[in-house]
């Protein structure tokens, strides 16, 4: 048995929850209004941060290798399509207005993440090649929120959803 990670203290969960809620709302997204459920997921994120050094999705089995887990670092690459289709991300952490307000029930949804073999084939083109294709500059796409920018290199952080540079792929 792996030693269970030290469970985060209630005040640590509180602090992380408040920060996440503020950042989420300022980016135009919504956290699940079921506070108990949401705090449990935040606790899961903190446990994974302690285990792996990054906030891997609490509802998926992470490998512990950042490159392999990059698509499931929260917010994951599947959040926005899942919110668009089902009103919620896979975990039920991020939801749309209808689920937030209670007019649409929150349900457990199917896994959108492709199986490992396919994931590798579909891996976005994360190149540092800065040659341009028909544009004066390379175009980079945030794999989380879809933000596009034309510049030599992707930004340190996505200015829209705040994820780190390694979540960008070459778009054009």
């Amino acid at each position, binding site marked *: 048995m792996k030693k*269970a990670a030290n469970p985060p203290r209630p005040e640590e969960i509180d602090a992380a929850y408040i920060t996440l809620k503020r950042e989420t709302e300022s980016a135009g997204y919504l956290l699940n209004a079921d506070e108990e459920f949401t705090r449990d997921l935040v606790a899961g994120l903190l446990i994974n941060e302690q285990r792996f050094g990054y906030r891997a999705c609490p509802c*998926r089995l992470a490998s512990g290798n950042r490159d392999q887990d990059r698509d499931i670092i929260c917010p994951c690459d599947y959040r926005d399509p899942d919110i668009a289709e089902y009103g919620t991300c896979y975990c*039920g952490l991020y939801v749309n207005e209808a689920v937030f307000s209670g007019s649409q029930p929150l349900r457990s949804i199917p896994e959108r993440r492709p199986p490992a073999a396919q994931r590798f084939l579909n891996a976005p083109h994360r190149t540092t090649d800065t040659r341009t294709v028909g544009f004066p500059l390379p175009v980079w796409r945030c794999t989380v929120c879809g933000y596009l920018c034309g510049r030599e290199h992707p930004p340190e952080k996505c200015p829209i959803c705040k994820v780190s540079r390694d979540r960008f792929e070459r778009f054009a």
Partner: protein
Amino acid sequence: MELERVKGRKAGDIVLFALSTCGWCKKTKKFLQDLGVEYEYVNVDLLEGEEEEEAMDELKRWNPDGSFPVVVINNMHAIVGYDPDEIKERLGL
């Protein structure tokens, strides 16, 4: 694969594959507990090495996606995701 047993009345052979950090897994555990049925579970994220591989191989027999939670009833039916109605139906409750 070592399973934790939660005592209750026997309603069938119930095995839950879960992650200790997952909200839907927690809801599934609570649902089974509230039903008062006996069940066994494993938190795969707390396993290591061969034990983890063995648990994942077993899980993928029931759910090729390898996603959580999965409830296996009577070694016959696999219920993927949190689906209380389906659990009750398969248990005949």
